[in-house]
């Protein structure tokens, strides 16, 4: 049974590979991109059911910017985003309470890196189950 298609956008190839294994183990189809531009291209080719997005790629804000861009685009705004971050410490922004607040951080969930396999699978399952 097809559980869903997930696109991982993260510039760390090792973390991407690890998450790919975890998610494929959970029965998901996984696609990946190493930066925002590549991510947008993958999106256009095959629309995923969920995006796992790293907050900090080449710039500390790249993930934020992409998430805003996606949420303001009618084609993609319904795709849930799970944001991965080590940014809590880096930028001084503790944005957990604001997750889901459209004006600030338009993502559905956020997780601090490194993510435990069980936790990642659970969050993904939750997000895909949401109406």
């Amino acid at each position: 049974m097809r559980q869903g298609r997930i696109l991982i956008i993260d510039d760390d190839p090792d973390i991407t590979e690890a998450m790919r294994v975890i998610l494929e183990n959970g029965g998901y189809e996984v696609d990946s991109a190493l930066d925002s531009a590549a991510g947008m291209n993958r999106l256009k080719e095959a629309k995923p059911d969920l995006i796992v997005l790293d907050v900090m790629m080449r710039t500390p804000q790249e993930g934020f910017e992409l998430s805003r861009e996606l949420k303001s685009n009618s084609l993609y705004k319904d795709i849930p985003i799970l944001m991965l971050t080590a940014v809590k410490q880096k930028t001084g922004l503790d944005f957990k309470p604001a997750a889901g607040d459209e004006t600030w951080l338009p993502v559905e969930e956020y997780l601090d890196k490194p993510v435990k396999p069980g936790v990642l699978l659970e969050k993904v399952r939750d997000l895909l189950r949401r109406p």
Partner: protein
Amino acid sequence: MENLFESTSLIQRAYWLIRLRWVAIGALAAATFVASRFVAVSLPISALYTIAAVLLVYNFVLYDLLRYWTWAGREPSERKIGGILTWQISADLLILATILHFSGGIENPFFLFFAFHMMIASILRSRRQSYLQATLAVLLFGGMIVLEAAGVLRHYSLEGFAAHELYREWTFVFGTLFVFTITLYLLVYMTTSIGEQLHRQQQGYERANAQLEGKDRLKNEYVLRLTHDIKGHLAAVQSCLEIVFHEMVGPLNEKQKDLIERACRRTSKCLAFITALLRLTRMKLTGHLEMEHFSLRNCIFNALAAVQNKAQGKSIAVSHQIDPDVDEVLGEAVLVEETLTNLLFNAVKYTPNGGQVSLRVTQDGPFIGVSVADTGIGIPNADLPHIFEEFYRAENAREIERDGTGLGLAFAKQVVERHGGTIWVRNNPDAGATFVFTLPRDAAQRQP
């Protein structure tokens, strides 16, 4: 570092002059009383009492004015407060000259008191101002004694104290005036020289301090960059190991599983350390709190819930006693809760099985006091002064847990101090230690 020439300290000095003047008024009245009653010296008593009365009114007015200008934390400009000081000193010179005139003029050795005014002027005002004050003093005193000698101004002799006709001896008058003049100018010269040297030194210290702060900042930025990069690599290592450990890429034999588990445990410890260091450094760098009104009561219960499992595992009874008035405070809830959790975890960690941990929260005026007491291993006296330093771990704590970060208490100290509170620790007389910290209910006004 407090600057000698800042307007705040000038205001304090202005108040200080007023306090001195109360003493001077009392002394003038008392001296007049004693001299007229008990010593056979003739004095125009009513004139002297009048001066004391005028001085009293003058000082009250000055006090009220100063209070009005500095009311509700207002801080008048340095220029304004400096002007007030200048006028005070000049007025005091005039008053001293008047008092001397009515109490013997040149015959009264209290004219030495002009020296005090020169010292005060030299310390509080500029060099130029001080020379002007010295000139004013010379003009007032010189004018008085010369006019009295010439018979233009009435002379009130100190009968019974000084030789009667001395005030008319021109040699004596000019000789005294000459010595008086050079004394005042020399005094101003010396005092302002020393004052300026001290001022330069102070500026030097301030510059050095600013440089040190800049260097500390650079160091923190460096640590932040470094730890952040390390964390990225560690996160990747951890992610890969976890997959193997959970046998997502195939089954492991016992030995493989054991070794991978060891590796996982070490990377998580290292990650915990790096994360703690990142948070502490971030806090030191930004110094910024996300202030909000929050329920301290909720934070306390969250913290208690967080340590419950661990305490139960060691059969440690965790009791709490919270003052019913304690609830809402202004601060950063996440940080305060973490600090509380931190202290409770420490208490449980370093208390042997079956011990006790008690949390007390009290309201004490504008402060809330939180204490966490345990019946644990306590802290060796030699370690007590260093316990809040980064990476410092007490001897006996290292024996119990080898891999602690040594950052938990440093973080707690940062959090508490950023909120305008203080944190300290003491050993209990029987066993264990008590950590106490205070938080202002309204941290906003106290944030450094």
